[in-house]
Every structure is written in C-alpha cells, then in structure tokens.
C-alpha cells in the first residue's frame, strides 16, 4: 500500500507542478525482480487514488524482465525469475542484470 501511495504522490506532485487539473493515467515500469506483486499493487492503487486528482486515473503497468547470461554456454536471454534455467543448455543461471526498476514513467493529464 505504501508503494501505491508513493506512486500517487509522485503523480499528483508532477501534475500540480504543471498546472494539470486531472490525471487520466499513470504509467509505471516494474522490473520482474523489483519485489512488487502486480495484483496487490493494482488493488492498493485503486484505494490510494481516492480523493485525489488521480481518482479516475488508470494504472498502466509496464513489465520489465531481467537480463540473464548463462555462465555455462554464454547464451543471453530475458527472464522473470531470480534463478532461471538457460533455454539453451538448461543450467541454472543466477547472475542477472536489470529487472529491478520500479518507477513512475509518465502521467497523462488534462
């Protein structure tokens, strides 16, 4: 819930700084490894927007996978898991980069 409130706070502050009166949508980028549960966030978002200028705003959710490189065969691939089997050689890959993003990308306002 605190994450949803933070998202709404960031969006409202940006809107007010730009003299916007109403937020239509808020786009968030969420990495696969950011530790965020989409359903929980969407539920909490619907509560967090009440009584704000984002009251009718939709949450546009952009999922970002992590990038993995297999230490055994060198194959590069994308994954949503912290421990992923290599699609080429099936060895488990634990060394990942990215996928930890959790940011408000932009907002659409009137």
């Amino acid at each position, binding site marked *: *819930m*605190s*994450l949803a409130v*933070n*998202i709404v*706070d*960031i*969006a*409202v*502050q*940006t*809107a*007010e700084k*730009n003299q*916007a*009166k109403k937020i*239509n949508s808020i786009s*968030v980028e969420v990495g696969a*490894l*950011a*530790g*965020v*549960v989409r*359903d*929980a*966030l969407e539920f*909490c978002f619907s*509560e967090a927007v009440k*009584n*704000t*200028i984002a*009251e009718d705003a939709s949450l546009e959710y952009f999922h970002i996978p992590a990038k993995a490189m297999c230490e055994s065969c060198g194959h590069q691939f994308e994954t949503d898991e*912290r*421990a992923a089997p290599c699609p080429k050689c099936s060895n*488990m890959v*634990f060394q990942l980069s990215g996928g930890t993003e*959790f*940011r*408000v*990308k*932009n*907002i*659409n*306002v*009137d």
Partner: protein
Amino acid sequence: MCDTCGCSQPNEAVTFRKPGSNEHTHLHHHHDHEHSHGHEGHSHSHSESRTLEVEQDVLSKNNLLAERNRGYFKAKNMLVLNLVSSPGSGKTTLLEKTIQALKEEMPIAIIEGDQQTMQDADRIHAAGAPVLQVNTGNGCHLDATMIERALDELKPKNDSVLFIENVGNLVCPALFDLGEAAKVVIISTTEGDDKPLKYPTMFSASDICIINKTDLSPYVNFDIEKCKSYALKVNPKLQFFEVSATTGDGMDSWYHWLKEQT
C-alpha cells in the same frame, strides 16, 4: 511489498518508546498534495490532454531519506547494521549476547522494530545498551522515516555501533533502505535450508549471513553446507558466520568481525 498485509495503516499508528518510559511519540505523515476541489466552473474551452514525463523511482522518497540517514551516520562515524530475518531466528538473543560481550569495548545502540510490545527493547535494556522500540502497528517493515525519527529520540554517541533489528519478515525489509552500511540476514537451523532460494531478494540484498542455533543441528534436518551453497548462488559475495547465540559457539568470529569494522 508484502502482498497480504497491505501496510495501510496511517503513520500515526507508528510509535517510538524507550524502556521504562510511559510516554511515546507518534510519527506524523504530512501530505504534500492537496485534495481535489469540486466546482471548477463551466469552461467552454477544451484543453488537450498531455503526457508529462516523470521517470521517478517509486521508492525515491525513502531512498533519499535513507541517504540522509547515511550522511548522519558518516558524520558521527557510526557503523550501522540492519538485522533482517524471519520471526524467531534469534535476532534479539544474538544482540543480547553481542551487547554483553562487547559493550565495554564499543558504544552500542539498538533500534528495535516490532508490530507491538516493548518485549525486545526491554531485553536489550536489561543487557545494558541504549535502545528505542519502534512499534509499527500493522506495518511489516521499518522505513527510513522511522529510523530518522528514532535517531532523534535515541541520540546515539559518535563512533557507536547501531544495530537495527528490523521487523521479523524475510520479504519487505529488502525493499526499504534505512541508510545502513550492510544488511545482516539471519537464518536458524530450525528453518528450511532452502530458504535462500525461496527468499532470494533478501539474501541478495545482504552482505552478511548468520546461521544461528547451530547447537540444534543434531536434532534437525538442516544441511548447513547446502544452505550456504544456495545462498552463494543467489549472492556470491555473502560472508557467513555459523553460531549458537545461546551457547556462544562461533560468536567469537562474529565479535572479531564487528571489532574489525569499527
């Protein structure tokens, strides 16, 4: 984020108390934004909707405050460790023993985090270290704002070691930087040895892993070497201490490491 508890109580529910004190203070959350106003007046002109770029990290507020805490710690030459684990791993006992062993050699201070009660703070107080209890109410983790508020009350000495005993929770505390130098994840032999694979976020976020309750190893199915290898897969840089806080076994290495850091 914990996907069951919601952490939705207002910040007024978070309290800060010292052992033996009947007073407690609250955290007040100031809303920076105004609520929307009704009745704007009928306008004939139609403004186009527009997209405003934001590119701001959601946890930026907490992260900024954590960095401020970090600056405070640096200025006071403090070593700050954030102890994280499932409930019941032995964090408080570990701290009691550490305080008893090292309090003559270095100033130690503790911030205790629990949903309710002064139990842990009272134990730390009895062990002989200054301590502040943060009760989070329904909250499942400490955040940087709570630490800043706790520091205002605790007023730790320069050159001290501050241990923050986080709320028992192997999930959410990994997301909330408090300004610490390192996270110490504690797992006990009475838990599953595959926990590092099941809770990789916390094990990757930590620098130190303490395996506690080694005295119970003969009675449980916990494979210490397996647990360490799982943890190293998720975080190759983890440093381990195998201890029994209650018997004292292995604690010397932990004390030695602490003394080396200061």
